[in-house]
């Protein structure tokens, strides 16, 4: 690990950060294998252990180095990259990973559909083979950052005669294809962070398929597991995240304090600290080669906590809590929640228990995979998708 930090120092000496063009600079970092050190050589990594990444990230942060593009990093970094690494061909890895890392190309995720949310495997978007291409038709929803994305990871149905989990395939979709129509989906916050995406006769080359035909569910599961870890396990410093905003207001505005809010605040402070330590324990476990199942717990707890904290935040603001800064329909390019008011955060965090797998689905996953409780009876898994009631 000290070797790697020395490598970072050397890289910084050769590539000064001051005044650097972020894309060029990040490209050089990728080429030096210091993007994701556990990725293979030539693909942004050095084949090092995953545990070394934190020291590398911290060294670059300390040097005030350009950071990866803040636009939709979760999808590209957290989900697309590990999925491409695991299931992609050499050509796909060479083509996609570098511009994904530098931020030249933003990614989005074409998974959810109006009729397939929690029950994602029910999805109806069709991909029909036509020579070396697939022709895709369907409608996707809740697509974060589709309005700025260059590429999308896409799950589509390639065989409706099979049971729902078996007839799916996984593709990389070019968002500039003329058949792709991205429309803003205005949310309860007033803005349109998400989109609806209509796919009409979109032609995807077979070379942009990830994994085997019919193996789409397996590939998607990898993406989704990475999504949960990404969403849940990111806490770092004490009072990092939303609790910090409320604590700050509490300290700076003594006139807003009440005894009832005080105990609630302290409880939530303890819960936030517990979540931070849980995420830290998960990170230490991963670094030591003992991946634990705490990622699922962290995502579940994160949602509950964020909603409680932002609810308290609105109440603490008293009369100001009645006001809302701006209902204008915007299409943001990043998730800058800290600069918005308490009301915005309150509304936005309602999505935390729905996006990336609802809390209910997550509890089912914990019950099945971790506690190994008896499963609920199901009637849908052996029936061809085309015969399922919808």
């Amino acid at each position, binding site marked *: 690990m000290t070797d790697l930090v020395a490598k970072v120092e050397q890289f910084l000496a050769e590539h000064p950060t001051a005044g650097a063009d972020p894309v060029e600079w990040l490209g050089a970092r990728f080429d030096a294998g210091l993007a994701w050190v556990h990725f293979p050589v030539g693909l942004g990594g050095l084949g090092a252990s995953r545990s070394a990444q934190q020291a590398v990230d911290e060294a670059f942060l300390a040097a005030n180095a350009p950071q990866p593009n803040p636009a939709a990093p979760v999808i590209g970094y957290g989900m697309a990259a590990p999925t491409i690494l695991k299931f992609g061909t050499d050509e796909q890895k060479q083509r996609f990973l570098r511009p994904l890392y530098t931020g030249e190309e933003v990614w989005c995720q074409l998974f959810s559909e109006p009729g397939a949310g929690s029950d994602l495997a029910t999805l109806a978007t069709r991909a029909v083979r036509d020579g070396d291409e697939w022709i895709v038709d369907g409608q996707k929803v809740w697509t974060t950052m589709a309005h700025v994305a260059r590429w999308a990871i896409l799950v589509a149905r390639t065989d409706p005669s099979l049971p729902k989990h078996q007839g799916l395939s996984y593709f990389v979709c070019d968002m500039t294809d003329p058949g792709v129509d991205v429309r803003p989906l205005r949310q309860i916050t007033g803005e349109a962070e998400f989109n609806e995406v209509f796919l009409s006769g979109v032609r995807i080359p077979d070379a942009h398929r990830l994994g085997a035909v019919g193996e789409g569910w397996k590939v998607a599961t990898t993406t989704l597991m990475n999504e949960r870890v990404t969403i849940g396990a990111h806490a770092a410093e004490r009072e990092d995240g939303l609790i910090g905003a409320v604590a700050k207001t509490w300290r700076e505005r003594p006139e807003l304090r009440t005894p009832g809010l005080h105990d609630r605040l302290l409880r939530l402070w303890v819960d936030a600290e517990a979540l931070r330590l849980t995420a830290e324990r998960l990170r230490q476990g991963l670094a030591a080669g003992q991946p634990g199942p705490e990622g699922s717990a962290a995502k579940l707890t994160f949602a509950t906590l964020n909603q409680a904290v932002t609810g308290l935040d609105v109440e603490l603001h008293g009369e100001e809590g009645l006001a809302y800064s701006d209902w204008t329909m915007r299409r943001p390019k990043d998730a800058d929640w800290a600069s918005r008011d308490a009301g915005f955060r309150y509304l936005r965090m309602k999505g935390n228990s729905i996006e990336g797998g609802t809390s209910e689905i997550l509890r*089912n996953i914990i019950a099945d995979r971790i506690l190994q409780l008896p499963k609920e009876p199901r009637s849908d898994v052996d029936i061809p998708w085309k015969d399922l009631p919808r």
Partner: protein
Amino acid sequence: MSDLLYSEVENDLRASVRDLLTDRSPWTSVLARVETDKPYDLELWRTLAAEMGLAGLLVPEDLGGAGASAREVAVVLEELGRAVTPTPFLGSAVLATSALLAAGDTETVAELAAGQRIGTLAVPLTTAPHADFPSSVRVEDGKLTGRVGSVVDLEVADVVVVPAIGADGPELHVVPTASAGVTVTPITPLDLTRRIATLELAGVESRKLSGDAATALRTALTTGAGLLASEQLGVAQWCLDATTEYVSTRHQFGRPIGSFQALRHRLADLWASVSSAVAVSRAAADALATGSDVDIAVAVAASFCSELAVHAAEEALQLHGGIGMTWEHPVHLYLGRAKSSELALGTPERHRDALATLVDLPA
């Protein structure tokens, strides 16, 4: 950042304690024993304390201890909690030992470490680390007089560390319970597996400790509160495991009740909280071992794990249904332990109150 994982040594220690408790302290034995006049199995205590050397984990090697740290003690407490084993470990190996070490004693602490004698700390078990120094015992003409209620493990203690008010303020004294003028009156406890008693001192001879009494007492109570969180984790873990097993086998409406979503989701939530309790209690143990960030880590762990253990025991009882309400099922032993431990060494509210000052979130 503190080390939140279990080391190999700690895992080995856990395995040996669990093996011993599985053999010698199954819940059937615990239940059979709690209504007798010997609720504590002192044979088992001798094995744990003397043969395995667990009473001296916190004690340096030159005083006859194991020279280990709070991290190892925490692992032992997890197992003692998981088995609700009635032992004087909290009173003797944690509270009395910490107070004696902090006050610079080298004599009594060595006897406790060797498992030759059992000690405890003469404060009501509800005392929080940040409480005022107790004033119910006074030093008059060099002798101790006063009364202390709800002293943990006092029934089996050979020696007590007594906080008392002398002419110049707080003092700590060591008193053998066999001394003239000492009366020990057992109290029927809510927690059948952890005994409390009233201590009365009527002009009792004692040995005064030289160290700063207020600091030593506070250190002992902070250590106790931080480590009790690990015992509470053990209680919660048993409740989760036992309930998961039960709902997987109990059938109603033609299927195991663990296949009903209402129950599955409650257990998934409980599992998530227990996962957090592991991290939080490890952080407290590590802080006590390294001496860094102690007060905040302990307050967080005490608040979080106290409430979790009670919640876990209450969920366990409810999800066991009718059998959970019976004497013959052990869940009541865990509920009693969990609810009493919530009051022990500071309620969650008291710890959050302390936190308000520590992290600058004043009322």
